[in-house]
């Protein structure tokens, strides 16, 4: 029996209309629509698109929660072997929708997902979380993208082990996979060197970790009205470490309510950090997370008020990728809670 696939596309690829129709809510259709045809051709009967979900890009952007709920509910009901979104090429909002809806389906339902888009599409930021096939920057790239995505999708549905990103046609996702090149390493290196000398394009086989810098945030002339957020890599946690933050190589972070605390006490708080002598922080946790003086400043009107929660993890040996993920998560929480400035303490 053929594998069953649900395909997600936007209003434009469903031939509903362009920008003027981008507001339409998700609708469920039977069988394939538009670009789904190219996948089915490539599958030669091994897989079929049982349903297509069409959703306007503006609708998704403006009603992301509703859109996700609706799509997940349908996919759950249909119970397919796989969920494919796009490809979105260089369409930014479509790419964002494809990546985020695919991630939602993967997280909620645990079925394989795949999307495709141009490497600079903002949706490609999620390439470490879901498989994304790199495509050209316009829909003219469908001819090339469809067979790659179709092949990769079949492999996923069959549960086969994936090869390296460059072999299978997905964007590098931070998981290193060995494979055999046609030429030996020294020859590849000499070719790369010649390209580099001549100012021609070359692609490193081993990208260095991200060294990106962020522009300094704007100065805040008046702190007296500001909601101040707090975070630490010093591992301050509620007494007893209820979230089980690891002493090193932490796999998660903790969120702690400081409502009603005028200072952190040794009875209520401690450090989970394994990389330094914990005696001093356990004796007086304000030495790492200075709630006592901040409450005082709150009273004095030096700051507006403290955000109700602080966020804590252990910097000790924690993978760069994990700490980035933690911070991305709680930065969103702070943003939603109206935090305007943040103090981060580290040991």
């Amino acid at each position, binding site marked *: 029996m053929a594998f069953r696939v649900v395909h997600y596309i936007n209003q434009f690829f469903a031939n509903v209309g362009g920008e003027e129709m981008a507001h339409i809510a998700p609708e469920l259709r039977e069988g394939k629509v538009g670009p789904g045809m190219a996948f089915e051709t490539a599958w030669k009967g091994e897989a079929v698109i049982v349903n297509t979900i069409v959703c306007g890009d503006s609708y998704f952007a403006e009603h992301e929660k509703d859109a996700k709920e609706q799509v997940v509910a349908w996919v759950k009901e249909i119970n397919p072997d796989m969920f494919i979104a796009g490809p979105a090429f260089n369409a930014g909002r479509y790419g964002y929708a494809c990546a985020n809806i695919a991630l939602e389906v993967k997280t909620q339902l645990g079925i394989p997902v795949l999307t495709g888009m141009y490497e600079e599409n903002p949706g490609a930021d999620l390439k470490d979380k879901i498989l994304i096939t790199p495509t050209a920057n316009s829909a003219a790239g469908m001819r090339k993208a469809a067979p790659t995505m179709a092949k990769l999708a079949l492999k996923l549905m069959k549960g086969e082990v994936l090869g390296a990103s460059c072999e299978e046609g997905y964007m590098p996702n931070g998981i290193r996979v060995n494979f055999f090149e046609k030429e030996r390493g020294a020859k590849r290196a000499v070719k790369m060197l010649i390209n580099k000398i001549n100012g021609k394009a070359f692609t490193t086989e081993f990208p260095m970790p991200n060294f990106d810098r962020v522009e300094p945030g704007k100065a805040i002339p008046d702190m007296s009205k500001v909601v101040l957020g707090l975070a630490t890599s010093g591992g301050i946690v509620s007494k007893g470490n209820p979230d089980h933050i690891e002493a090193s190589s932490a796999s998660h972070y903790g969120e702690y309510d400081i409502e009603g605390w005028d200072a952190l006490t040794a009875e209520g708080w401690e450090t989970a950090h394994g*990389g330094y002598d914990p005696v001093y922080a356990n004796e007086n946790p304000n030495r790492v997370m200075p709630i006592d003086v901040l409450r005082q400043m709150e009273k004095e009107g030096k700051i507006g008020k403290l955000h109700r929660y602080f966020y804590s993890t252990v910097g000790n040996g924690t993978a760069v990728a994990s700490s980035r993920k933690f911070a991305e998560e709680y930065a969103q929480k702070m943003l939603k809670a109206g935090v305007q400035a943040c103090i981060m303490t580290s040991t």
Partner: protein
Amino acid sequence: MKLPHRIRIITNNPLVNTVLSDWYKVEFHEDASYRDILVMVRDMVYNGYELMTHPMAGSVKPNETMYKSIVVGTDLIGTNLEHCNLMMNALITCDKFKPLGVVYSDYHIKDFQLIDYTLLCGALDFDAIAGLSKANVNSY
């Protein structure tokens, strides 16, 4: 041989303690793990002591050998960014290797001591073989 002034050896390797303490200041932490030594030295380097040898010396992986010896300066010279990075990366690298669950025989343990000792001697330009005359090491 590198001069013993202003350097100290942080180690958990008894062979290093036996042989080199006549020549160098050896801080021997018998019960420390490989990782403990890295953490100790990292904190020293963070606090401004000079790191003299690379913390990941040797190709024996951190989840194989239990011994680590690192040379650190005795004077506070201020925090050195590159050395801080070396120590951070060493810990990250160390944590990457999963425990193997191997119980080593005394023979193997002595081999690990020997390797760590010879790597350190290589760094200090100390005659490793001459030094072994006062130690009890494996032979066939």
